[in-house]
C-alpha cells in the first residue's frame, strides 16, 4: 500500500511567504534575507539536498563505486 504524504506547497512559495516575515530584520540585504528565508522554509531533507547538490555539482563528493545502472 502506498504511504500517504501530506501535501506541501513548493519550497519557493514557502520561502516567498517567509521572506515577507523578514521585512523588518535589520542589517541584512534582501538577497541575504532571501537565502535565510529559503533555509527557514525548507524541511531538513530539502536543506540537506541543497547542500548535497551543491557539493556534488562542484565535484567535492563523488561516489566510490559507479552505480550499477550506469551504462556507456
Amino acid at each position: 500500500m502506498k504511504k500517504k504524504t501530506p501535501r506541501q506547497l513548493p519550497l519557493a512559495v514557502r520561502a516567498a511567504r517567509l521572506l515577507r516575515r523578514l521585512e523588518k530584520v535589520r542589517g541584512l540585504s534582501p538577497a541575504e534575507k532571501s537565502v535565510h528565508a529559503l533555509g527557514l522554509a525548507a524541511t531538513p531533507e530539502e536543506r540537506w539536498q541543497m547542500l548535497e547538490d551543491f557539493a556534488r555539482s562542484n565535484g567535492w563528493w563523488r561516489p566510490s563505486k559507479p552505480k550499477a545502472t550506469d551504462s556507456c
Partner: protein
Amino acid sequence: MLIGMSAAVAQGVLGTTLDVDLWIDLPPRQYMRVQNLARNLGATVAANTVVYLEDGTPVNFIFAVTGLGNFNQEYKYVRRLRFRDVEIPVLALERVAKSKAAVGRDKDLLHLKLIHEFLQCQKAAAEQPGGHRRRSKTPRRGG
C-alpha cells in the same frame, strides 16, 4: 549526534561544508568500533576518524568538541529532526555557534556570522506567526 556546519545546515543555515561531523559518545580509544560499523555499511576508511560513505559523503567522527562540555552535558541541547524517515539528534544552533566561536578559524567566523544572521531571521519569523502582519482591526480605506 550531528554537530558542526552539517548540524547548522540541517537546521536551516544555508552555508556549505565539505564533511559531516558526528559526535560519538565513546572514548577516543574506541574509534575502531565506529570504524568497523562504518566499514560494515560499505564505507571506505580514510583515517582513524574519517570515512567516505559509498555515495562519497565524507564523515568525521568526533570524540570531543572544542568549547563545549562533554557529550552528556551537550545532549540536553539536542534537537531531533526527521531526516530520511529517521529521527536524528542534532546539536542546537546556539551550541554549534559556541563551538565555532571557541575554535575561531576563518571559516568558523564566517559560519558564525551566518548562524547569527539566521537566528535573527528565525526570531523575526517566529514573532510574526502566520506570515501576515496584523495592523489594526479597522480596515484601511483606499484613496
